[in-house]
């Protein structure tokens, strides 16, 4: 009798547990939005970051540890973006399945076509080079489509019975994103019918974005990634920008305000600071809104020309 009761309890309990939404903790808010779009009612997504931070430089804080501990799945960018804090956070949870290699840990960087993967030997004298390639793919619709597919497969792996649901969500979301991309691309085409002007970025975090929208960048203001440029290097970058007739230099909200302003003074080229992550609050709180905001910032280039 007792064993029957126990069996019944276990069946009901496990049924309830399976029915509960999958708790997904993401590093960037972009990934939380992606999880909500693809996971729908089957997931509860929470982002560790709010979009104001520099994801390279954070502490392995108990604030993160407690949130990650509650998760069934941890979703990160990978490619070394969160290497300074996430491995410690995962280890401190004491949950084997959430650590690299475990079924509850997934890096979206593992399913996209990575750009700027070093092909030659490098060391720290070349700045903060990411050995696995450029990790700033979260603002590129092209890479987001690949990441979304990878996420749908991962969610299907964790909840096989919900695979059709996740795949259907991915299909409709990817169609929406593709349409948005096409619309934004045609706006760019309308503004610059022949060829887009040259752009420049402070840190190399727009590479995927330029590539996806077929925009042309002449490189970064930083001579070495992650290293604030010295005055001579800043002057060199400004001279190069003038020579190449750069229409706009773009920088993330986290990049050094002082250096961006100095570049603008030296080159006379307009600069704009934009969010490079979805923000948990404000006008860029979804992937789609962030895409529109970024393209509008780019389109303002001609109007900003001195």
């Amino acid at each position, binding site marked *: 009798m007792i064993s029957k009761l126990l069996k019944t309890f276990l069946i009901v309990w496990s049924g309830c547990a399976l029915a509960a939404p999958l708790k997904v903790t993401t590093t960037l808010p972009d990934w939380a939005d992606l999880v909500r779009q693809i996971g729908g009612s089957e997931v509860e997504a929470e982002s*560790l970051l709010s979009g104001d931070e520099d994801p390279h430089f*954070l*502490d*392995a804080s*108990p604030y993160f540890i407690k949130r990650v*501990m509650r998760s069934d799945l941890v979703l990160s960018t990978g490619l070394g973006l969160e290497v300074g804090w996430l*491995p*410690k956070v995962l280890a401190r949870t004491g949950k*084997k399945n959430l650590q690299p290699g475990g079924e509850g840990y997934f890096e979206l960087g593992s399913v996209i076509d990575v750009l700027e993967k070093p092909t030659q030997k490098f060391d*720290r004298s070349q700045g903060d080079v990411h050995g696995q390639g450029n990790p700033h793919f979260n603002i590129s619709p092209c890479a987001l489509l690949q990441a979304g597919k990878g996420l749908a497969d991962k969610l299907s792996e964790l909840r096989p019975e919900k695979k059709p649901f996740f795949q259907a969500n991915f299909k409709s979301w990817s169609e929406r994103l593709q349409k948005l991309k096409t619309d934004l691309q045609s706006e760019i085409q309308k503004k610059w019918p022949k060829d887009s002007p040259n752009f420049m970025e402070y840190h190399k975090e727009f590479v995927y974005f330029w590539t996806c929208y077929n925009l042309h960048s002449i490189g970064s203001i930083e001579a070495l990634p992650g290293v604030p440029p010295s005055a001579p290097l800043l002057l060199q970058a400004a001279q190069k920008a003038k020579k190449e007739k750069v229409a706009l230099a773009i920088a993330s909200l986290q990049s050094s305000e002082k250096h961006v302003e100095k570049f603008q003074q030296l080159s006379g080229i307009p600069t704009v600071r934009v969010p490079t992550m979805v923000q948990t609050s404000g006008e860029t709180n979804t992937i789609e809104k962030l895409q529109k905001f970024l393209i509008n910032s780019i389109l303002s280039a001609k109007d900003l020309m001195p």
Partner: protein
Amino acid sequence: MNRANNRMDSNSARIPLSPYFDFMRKLCSRRNCQRFLTKLMLLALSSLTLPSMAQNLLEDVKIAGSVDMIHPFNFDSPSKNTLQVRSVELMAFGAIDQTFDGWIDFAGHYDEGQFHFELHEAYISSSKIFPGLEFKVGKYFLNLGRLNRFHQHDWVLSMAPKSHREFFVPGGEDSLGAEGVADTGIEASYILPTEHFYQITLGATNGQCYGHCETLGEKPPRPLMYLRPTTMFLGSPQGGLLIGATFLNREDAAKTETQLFGVDATYKKREGKTLKWLVQSEVQYQEQTPLTEERSQKLGGYIFTQYGQDQMYYGLRVDGFSHLNKKFSGTTQDQDDLDYGLTAQVEYQNSEFSKFRVSYIHEIDTTESLPDVKDRMVLLQWVYHLGAHPVHDF
């Protein structure tokens, strides 16, 4: 290359070879240490130079080195005013297997004019056995207070405060080199399954060596025991306030019982890549009861505040320490005793991996009816890291 490795192993006691090894031989004074160091160096070098098979063998082993150079300009005792390598650390860490991680750490430092390499830490740990649980077994820096948990080259301070030197490095003559308590034992930390973050750390170590030890010392009647609960307030992705308490109990071989109670707080606030604000403080109270003498009571602490702007960091520290029940020699009459200090420092971080710091340290020991003892110095410090430096806790 394999042949070369074998040859080096068989002759490791004599180490002919390159100027690099000659240099390391000079640094290292003990024969056994030399042998081990040679092997460690070979491991490190092979991980950097061998492209295929050796790299695969060392796939998950990370090698790191840290160097802490200082130049004191002491106004009151200028005899040690020289440029010196305060410490060199060589670390290897990584996964042992699917369950355990391993850590080896050798540190070299000057001791009575000679540069010694010694085992700093060597432990096996795991965080993959039970949710919320982490443990380590071996030799390690004890999870006591704030500073003691970190290697000196990772401190935000250039020199240990007086209270830290008194409570965690007793007997250490060299205030510049004072680091902390590392001992052999077991330590377990558990994060409680509550909504808010609470972590309890419990540890027990041999207790033979406490602070600065030339030799291992006699075995005490019971292990050193310690407990450290921690919690966090004002948590956000860019910072928070971490508060911890420390309780320690030790009885040494001479039956002197030591009890230490401490509270520490660390507040951090980041903006982008800059640690905009840091406030770090520790207060400790210690009671020592020797078998035949009277119980002594000591209280001390410090508060350090740092403001960061781009690559520059400006810090100010205030220290205080008092022997609460000091008596005039040969009497039962209380003698006032207060030691205090003020440190101002400026730090430039060239990158995550190298920093340069200038500090002005002003310490005064006051004891009733005795003249004040001053210790004032400017300290230049340069710290750099090579290789895969491990990620630190908050």
